[in-house]
């Protein structure tokens, strides 16, 4: 047991943060979100630096990849970090051409990054296949929820590379791990933005963050977000086993609902505007917490894995 980053892990976190400070951040995310655009230059920069492949690199693994995805989420990068760096390598032990979008035939609705992806991974029960996409294949939809979304319904009949027996189940575990990490990082971003604002903003002659009624709600959120973060890290370190990946995703999605509500309620009217950074993280929380069936589906999967012997 060791709950501190080692020197290599700290070096990874610092290097990724440095790259993100140059290529990402809330202002850039806000501009991209207005048009529902994908951040191709950021994707390229992370790829060139080797961060997309860190899960498969010698001496590294899913925990190191989780640190990368967490950092991207905190910096509000509009890139398919979870699918590329975590879900696919965790499930398949190899890379697929990125950007990657993940879809489950059993879960309807638009898919994150599908209009910008080169690979669409489609889960069907315990199986899965990889489809090569060309620009324009998936129909982009307008959305205020921070990520580029697109409909893939028309693509689901297409043939693709069969990813092998059991790949669907393993991909679902990897996807849940990725969601848990992205939820953790995005909640941190939303909470940090809220805390920063409430420390500055004064009403009744004092900072709003000094009121006990406000502090208790922020503290509760911070406790649960910290728990979600550690659940995700442990699930990554253990290789995304079904129960732990699902528990981490369930807890993240469960907490995200409350974090969204508190962050907006406490930030007041400015929090609803595009001039203020909160929306960059908060609106994404809704997309993340509904993905792959949401908290209820993750929690039921975790319970099945623990008590009914199947995910």
């Amino acid at each position, binding site marked *: 047991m060791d709950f*501190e980053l080692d020197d290599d892990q700290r070096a990874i976190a610092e290097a990724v943060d440095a790259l993100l400070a140059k290529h990402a951040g809330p202002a850039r995310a806000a501009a991209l979100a207005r048009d529902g655009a994908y951040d191709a230059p950021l994707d390229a920069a992370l790829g060139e630096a080797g961060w997309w492949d860190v899960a498969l690199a010698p001496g590294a693994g899913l925990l190191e990849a989780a640190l990368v995805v967490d950092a991207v989420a905190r910096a509000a990068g509009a890139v398919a970090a979870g699918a590329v760096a975590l879900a696919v390598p965790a499930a398949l032990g190899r890379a697929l051409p990125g950007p990657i979008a993940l879809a489950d035939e059993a879960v309807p609705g638009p898919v994150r990054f599908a209009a910008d992806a080169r690979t669409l991974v489609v889960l069907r029960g315990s199986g899965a296949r990889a489809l090569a996409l060309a620009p324009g294949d998936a129909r982009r939809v307008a959305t205020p929820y921070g990520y580029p979304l697109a409909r893939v319904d028309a693509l689901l009949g297409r043939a693709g590379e069969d990813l092998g027996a059991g790949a669907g189940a393993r991909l679902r575990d990897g996807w849940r791990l990725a969601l848990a990490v992205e939820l953790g990082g995005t909640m941190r971003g939303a909470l940090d933005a809220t805390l920063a604002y409430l420390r500055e903003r004064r009403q009744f002659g004092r900072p709003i*963050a000094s009121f006990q009624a406000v*502090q208790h709600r922020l*503290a509760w959120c911070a406790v649960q977000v910290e*728990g979600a973060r550690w659940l995700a890290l442990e699930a990554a370190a253990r290789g995304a086993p079904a129960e732990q990946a699902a*528990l981490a995703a369930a807890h993240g999605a469960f907490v995200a609902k409350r974090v969204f509500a508190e962050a907006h309620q406490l930030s007041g009217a400015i929090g609803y505007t595009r001039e203020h950074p909160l929306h960059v993280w908060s609106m994404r929380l809704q997309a993340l917490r509904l993905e792959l069936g949401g908290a209820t589906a993750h929690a039921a999967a975790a319970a099945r894995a623990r008590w009914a012997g199947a995910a």
Partner: protein
Amino acid sequence: MDFDWSPEDAAFRRALVAFLAEALPPDWDEVAKDGPGSEAQVAFSHGFCGALAARGWLTPHWPVEVGGGGASAWRHAILGEELWSRGEPRGPQYMNVNWIGPAILRYGTEAQRRAHLPRIARGDVIWCQGFSEPDAGSDLVALRTRAVREGDAYVVDGTKIWTSYANHAEWCFLLARSDPSASRHRGLSVLLVPMSLAGIEVREIPSVVGERYFHEVCFRGVRVPAEARLGPEGEGWDVVTYALQHERVGAPRYARAARTLDRLVAALPPAALDDPARLARLGEARALCEAARLLSYRVVDQRARGLPPSADANVARVAGTFAEQWVADLALELAGADGLEAGGFADAQFRMAMTAGVAVGATEVQLDLVASRWLGLPRG
């Protein structure tokens, strides 16, 4: 970062679980149904703690020279999980190893360490905690019990309340005001008081939580030898703060809640697990327990590194309380009206969880401390 147990710690847990299978009687759940302070459980705990101590398993993480095994804090955490989750067969003695011993280890004189630590390590002594008072609950610093220095003794007058195990205790870890003129946080001292001294009276306060759970302890002109003071005079608040940060993660409530979920599922008919809504509620509750486990491990990790207590203990406490109460509600709901019968595990879990948000500092106090010390928010 490493989330795996060392081979030695994993082997220790296996050996402990095997020992418990032998050491706990078949009707153990019946013995433990009324909590660690009940007559039945206290009676059982005497032999049990001796057996643990004989294996070096009561204080494995203490230094060798005071009766410990020199192992890391993780060993103590494993013990806490396996014992507390089964309803705490150490009885009231879990407090000795969780926070009383560590406080004496940290602040005790050589004589105090020699007097108290070997007995705790042997498992033959029961302590109680004299902190809360009728007019000093969450605002503990408002306490009014006085310890007036007269020659080589302190004369103690006042009333302590909600004191668990006071009826069985041989010693009291007492916080009293030794200097009424000092500011609120100063002027407090900790005294290690024999409960046999003249002028101490214990009265049980019947409760719905468990048998012999709460007591009122009155001190009337009790002469306590001056050498019973733990730590410097007037600096009792520092001693108590240190002790409380140990106590907050001492009893792993998440572990008991997680075990309750396992037992709850085992008691359900198999078809009950076909219902996705019920599965989701169980999974959600388990996620809360697991999150609390990791936040507690973070505190254990800091302790294993020899770092001073931090606000991470408050974070862990908030998460543990929330998880336990969530599970308790779910246990009672899934058990249905059957859960209302005294002594079932749903009832035992529910009543144990009732006090979680108040014991060791109300959740609101924990949240205050998370806000100020962990988030660094300005005081109101």
